[in-house]
Every structure is written in structure tokens, then in C-alpha cells.
């Protein structure tokens, strides 16, 4: 049988142009199939890696996916704030180990500004419980000091000592800038592959300070000078959300119930893992649609191969007749066509996988930068091997159609050369 495979290979080499085109169609479909699968799983990983070690997220009453998205992923906006008194009550709750306040709403050149405190640098964890580390500088201490995520610093070319202006709201336009109160960069965080990289961190007090005179959402009253503000003591009134870690995880459910039924303010407490799970549930339809599209592309690729094999059969009747005269049996002719289909598919898969890794290597930094999703160039997973196995099997099965036709042709033609 190896003789037949060798013949099939040489025959294919003789029809390089169509062969390469066929291989390319299969390869492109494989790139798409694996690419979609990669992005799907890695986006999930990337999301799941964004937050770790946090037991509950508390925010104004809303759906858990919404709360998760705005508090952790900086997607969308908060529906409601929570009162500083509520924060203090739960931060000092007997089962709470630590609490991180988060205050969102301002931006700097497209990057979200987040007000928080020292607790954030100490307790916020991502990936597999990795803490935040500094590439340069230190935490903010003073009122008008800021710590930048690594992407912010890299993209806007900031370094320690740079001064930045924060804008009110998420659209950074002239009239909404807090331009009389510049912030000084005192620290730049190491890259995390999470939305932290795209965040400008300031203290909660600073958020309060820059909004003096902005109580109605725009600059109406006179805004004080930086020097005056530094001497005042700011106590935040409201924050957007808070992350808490418990002393013992056993208390999660009881605390969650307490928060959800808190009589003084309507609050929601969510478990990040559960909310993520709900998010996946919502995205699964889109995922399935993507997978369906890429499966159809694979089918289209294989049909392309089928049509090129079928077209070649007519002009290869002489070849079949010669093989028959040399003692090849119809089943050899059958095997020849199956081998061709298998070889084409295998070559397509190999090209596709190579192409995928090349493309991933090229787009990896771009995706990281624009979407904060970190694509790793890991080896093929079991599931991906199974997908490739399916493609190979489908290629072989499709090969049965021209093979059966060639078989019938060689039975009826025998050694008569028909052109």
C-alpha cells in the first residue's frame, strides 16, 4: 500500500498548482477553525485571570454580570453608587479580611481613571493569585499623585514625573477636563495582561478633590487651586464598588445574603466566579455561532478539494488505464485517490497550523494592546487535536467520492484509453 501512497504523492507533485491551491483552501479553513477556538478559550482564560482572590464584589443593586463588567473589566458604567458609610460598615465587618474601594467615572485619553486606596496595591490579585508589582516608582501618597497601568504608560509615553490631566466622564474633550489640577505620575505597574494595564489609578481623596465645583456633572462653580486643596481633608461620600476578601470562605453566603438584604441601601454582592460563569452562558450562543461558521468554512475547504479531485479524474483516465495494465487492481486506483485526498488534507492541516502560529505570533502584541487579551503560543490542546482529527477524517471520507468514481471508471474502462 505504501507504493500507492508514493504514487499518489508523485502524482500530486506533478499537479502542483492545483495541489497547492487545494492545500491553501484546507489550510485557511484550519486557521479559522483553530483561530476561533484559540481566541474563544484564551479570551475566557484572560477574563478568568483578571481577578483572583476576591470573594465578593459589592456595588449598587444591579445584575451580577453588569456589576462584574463595570467593576472589574471597566466595561459599561455603574448604575448606582454605594454610600461611603456602607463601605465602612462592610469593610469593618467581622468576617471581612480586607476591602478595596473603587471609584470610577473619569478618564484620561481613553483610559479609565480609578480612585482607590492603599488596600488595592496590597490585596488586589490577578492570574493565579499574583499581586500587583511596580515596574517603576511607588504607590501614590499625596493628593495629586497617580499610578499608571503599564499600557497607559507605554502608549502615551509617560514616565515617572510626567503630569497628566484627567477628564470628567469617559469622553476626553476640552470643556470637561479638570485642567487646573494636573496629576504627577509616581508609579508605573508591571504588565498584568488584565484591564489594570489600561487603568490610571489615583486616590479616592483626589477623586473627591477634583470634583469640587463639579457637583452637577459640569464645571459650574469656581474650582479651588491645588494648593488650597492639599490642606483640606477629603472624606469620600460615595464610591462605585468594592472588592472584599473574607477571613474564611465559609462565610461567603451568609455575608452575601446580609449585603443583598442590607436595609439602609439597595446593594448587590456577587461572587466573581459565578458571575463569570453567567457571562460565559450569555456568550455561548455567540461562541456556537462562531464555531458553526468556522465548521462551514472547513466544509467549504474540503468541498473545494473534492471538486478539484473530481475535475482531475477526467484528465487522468489514461493514468488509470496505464496503472490497470501494469496490474493495478481497481482497489489500488481507489486507494490512490483516497491517499491523495488524505495527503492533501494532511498537508492543509500542517500548513494551517503553521500559518496559525505565525499569525498568532504577529497579532499577539496587537490584541494584547487593543483588547488586553493575552494570547499564549501554547502547544495544541487535546481538544484542538480532536478538531484536527475530525478535519483529517472528513478529508478521507470526502476522498471516497472521487475514489469510488475512479474505481467505477477503471472497472468500465479497463485498459482502454478514453480521453
Amino acid at each position, binding site marked *: 500500500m505504501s507504493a500507492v501512497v508514493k504514487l499518489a504523492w*508523485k502524482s500530486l*507533485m506533478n499537479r502542483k498548482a492545483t495541489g497547492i491551491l487545494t492545500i491553501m483552501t484546507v489550510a485557511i479553513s484550519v486557521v479559522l477553525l483553530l483561530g476561533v477556538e484559540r481566541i474563544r478559550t484564551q479570551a475566557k482564560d484572560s477574563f478568568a485571570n483578571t481577578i483572583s482572590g476576591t470573594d465578593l464584589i459589592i456595588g449598587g443593586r444591579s445584575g451580577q454580570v453588569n456589576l462584574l463588567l463595570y467593576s472589574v473589566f471597566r466595561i459599561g458604567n455603574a448604575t448606582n453608587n454605594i454610600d461611603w458609610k456602607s463601605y465602612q460598615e462592610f469593610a469593618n465587618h467581622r468576617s471581612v479580611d480586607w476591602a478595596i474601594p473603587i471609584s470610577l467615572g473619569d478618564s484620561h485619553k481613553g483610559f479609565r481613571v480609578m480612585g482607590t486606596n492603599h488596600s488595592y496595591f496590597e490585596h488586589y490579585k490577578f492570574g493565579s493569585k499574583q499581586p500587583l508589582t511596580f515596574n517603576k516608582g511607588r504607590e501614590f501618597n499625596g493628593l495629586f499623585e497617580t499610578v499608571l497601568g503599564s499600557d497607559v504608560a507605554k502608549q502615551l509615553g509617560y514616565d515617572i514625573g510626567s503630569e497628566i490631566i484627567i477628564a470628567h466622564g469617559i469622553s476626553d474633550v476640552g470643556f470637561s477636563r479638570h485642567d487646573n489640577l494636573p496629576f504627577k505620575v509616581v508609579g508605573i505597574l508591571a504588565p498584568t495582561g488584565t484591564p489594570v494595564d489600561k487603568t490610571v489609578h489615583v486616590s479616592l481623596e483626589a477623586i473627591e478633590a477634583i470634583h469640587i465645583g463639579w457637583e452637577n456633572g459640569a464645571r459650574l462653580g469656581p474650582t479651588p487651586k491645588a494648593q488650597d486643596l492639599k490642606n483640606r481633608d477629603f472624606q469620600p461620600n460615595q464610591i462605585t464598588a468594592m472588592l472584599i476578601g473574607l477571613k474564611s470562605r465559609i462565610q461567603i453566603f451568609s455575608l452575601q445574603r446580609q449585603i443583598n438584604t442590607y436595609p439602609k441601601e439597595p446593594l448587590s454582592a456577587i461572587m466573581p466566579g459565578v458571575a463569570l460563569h453567567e457571562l460565559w452562558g450569555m456568550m455561548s450562543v455567540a461562541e456556537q455561532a462562531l464555531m458553526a461558521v468556522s465548521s462551514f468554512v472547513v466544509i467549504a475547504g474540503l468541498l473545494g478539494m473534492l471538486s478539484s479531485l473530481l475535475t482531475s479524474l477526467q484528465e487522468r483516465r489514461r493514468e488509470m488505464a496505464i*496503472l490497470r495494465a501494469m496490474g493495478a487492481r481497481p482497489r489500488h486506483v481507489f486507494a490512490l485517490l483516497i491517499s491523495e485526498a488524505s495527503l492533501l488534507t494532511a498537508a492543509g492541516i500542517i500548513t494551517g497550523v503553521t500559518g496559525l502560529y505565525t499569525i498568532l505570533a504577529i497579532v499577539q502584541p496587537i490584541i494584547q494592546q487593543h483588547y488586553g487579551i493575552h494570547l499564549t503560543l501554547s502547544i495544541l490542546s487535546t481538544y484542538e487535536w480532536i478538531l484536527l482529527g475530525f478535519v483529517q477524517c472528513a478529508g478521507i471520507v470526502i476522498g471516497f467520492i472521487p475514489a469510488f468514481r475512479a474505481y467505477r471508471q477503471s472497472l468500465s474502462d479497463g485498459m482502454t484509453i478514453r480521453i
Partner: protein
Amino acid sequence: MTITTPNVVELEDAQFFWPGSTRTTIHIPKLHIAQGEHVFIKGPSGCGKSTLLALLTGINTLTSGTLSVLDTNLISLSASQRDHFRANHIGYIFQQFNLLPYLNVLENVLLPCQFSKVRRERTHIEALSQTLDEQAQALLERLHLPNELHTRPVSELSIGQQQRVAAARALIGYPELVIADEPTSALDYDNRKAFIELLMEQANQANATLIFVSHDPTLEALFDRTLNLPDINQVSNLGALS
């Protein structure tokens, strides 16, 4: 031809018509070909030459009558056994474009050995000291195809050279029967004669029986015996299929 020489082909009361057709294509009461004979079968187009060859090579089977080739009753064999039989015992040369374009000269010559263990082994036994490749190369040399051509793609060869490669391929592994279906139709007269003489010489050396089919009567003189197919095929003048 003496009575003691065994027959390679024995065809008796043979009738054949194509499936679906009611008209007989072949009706030959008797055709014997002895071992070592060089037989020239002639006849105009459409007299059943190709059909006869398809029967002798076991591609098609007789509708009625008996046919034995090399003492094997072809009618009793299954289709795949006949394919096997052909691979082992018959060398075949087509009219032209005999060679697979994607194999080089040597690979083309060795093609029958891919499908027949018998011919592969016979090549070894007959020439203990030589590999298959060396055997094929020696055969090509004897057919005046110099060494430097052996690894060339066949498309670079002239028609005459290609037909000699085809002859080498038909002779490799010492098949008992070599069948040539108008192999010289694309050659000019001088080349034709040279080709046939070379083919016969090598067939003799391999102790093979040669059946040569052509509509060209000028070649007749080169052969031991000539059979005019219309004379022995009783329906030949009606046959539309050949």
C-alpha cells in the same frame, strides 16, 4: 511450430459481447499461440483487436467458450485474481503515451514491480547480484537508452525513446507474455523497424512470447506468424467496437 511446444494462449469457441449489447464482438472458434512465438495480429480498425487484447489480459471475460493463458483458465478466475495474473505474467505496451508523466524513466520501468511480487522476485532470482534498479538500468541500456536519461522526467524523451521505456517496462521481471497494442503507430518507418527488432531481441532473451497487434501490414514480414483477425473472427466485419 512443433507440437511439443506448449501453448501460451488457447482460445476455443470464444464468444464475447459487451454487456448491454446483443451484437457479438468476438467469435473465434480457435486460436492457439505457442510459447516463444512472435505473432503479428493485423486487421483494420473496428475488427475487434482491442477487445481480443482485453480478453487475453483478463480485463474482460468471455461470454462463452474457453480461454486459457499459460495453462490458467482465465474464466474461472475472479476479477481481482485476473488483475493479479496480469500483473504477474503479462507485459503490456500501449499505442503511445505509455508512461506516467509524474514518474521518471526508471520509476516508470519499475512500475509493474510495485503491483507484482512475482515479477519483483523474479527480477532478483534471475540476477542475484543486481538490485531492481540495476536490472532496470541494464534493460534500458540494452534498449539503447543511455544511463543519463534514467532519472529524467519522461516528458523530456522523444516518442521513440518513450516507446523503448515502455518496452523495458513490459519486459521487467520476465513476464511470460508480452502484448503490444500498435506500439509503433507514432513512429516513422525506420524507427518502427528498429523498435520491433529490439523488442523481439529482448523478448527472446527473456524467453517471452510476443503478441503484436497492428493495422500496418508492412510490419508483417518481421514476425514468425501473422494472423489476420478478420479471417479468424467470424463477426469481425460487423463489429463496430474495437
